[in-house]
């Protein structure tokens, strides 16, 4: 899945997805949940790591 496609599905800009991948932005819980669901994972911790 491309960044643009993921951004479109979860309702954010591609720039936001890029910032997430580069650890430069912390998503809201809702956005984290949406991304986790789109990526087919069951829990948020499978996609995001709390540091």
């Amino acid at each position, binding site marked *: 899945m491309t960044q643009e496609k993921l951004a479109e599905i979860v309702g954010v*800009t591609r720039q*936001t997805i890029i910032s997430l991948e580069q650890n430069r932005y912390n998503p*809201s819980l809702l956005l984290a949940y949406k991304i986790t669901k789109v990526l087919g994972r069951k829990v948020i911790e499978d996609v995001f790591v709390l540091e």
Partner: protein
Amino acid sequence: MIGKPQWFKRRKYTGWGFTPVTWEGWVYIFIAILPLVLIRVFSPMNQMGIILVVVWALVVGFDFADIILHLPKDERDMIHEAIAERNALWMIITVLAIGIGYQVSSSVVVGVSKVDPVIVVAIFAGLLVKIISNVYLDRKD
């Protein structure tokens, strides 16, 4: 209303407002400005001409405001916009306060009041908006 927010994006580095990102947006801007130019060029600035300009400017102004309020932005855009606008506001308030301080001190020296009421009203208007916003947000959450 008339213009669609999807035709534009928020200005981030070149002031306030929006800039077209589609051909529809550019056509919209052209059509919004064209009547004002035509009225100015082809009709004298009599009462009717002034009324036409004011009415068209109001229509365009309200549509611009509607576009700005509904510009597409995600949570990251909203956070960035809030921080940038807050910083800009603090700079404006600082400069206005310095301006008032200068005017008050000049007034004391000269012995004549020279404080610009517009600056004072601007600061109090901003304060009122801040109070109303905080009351609304406290009740909302």
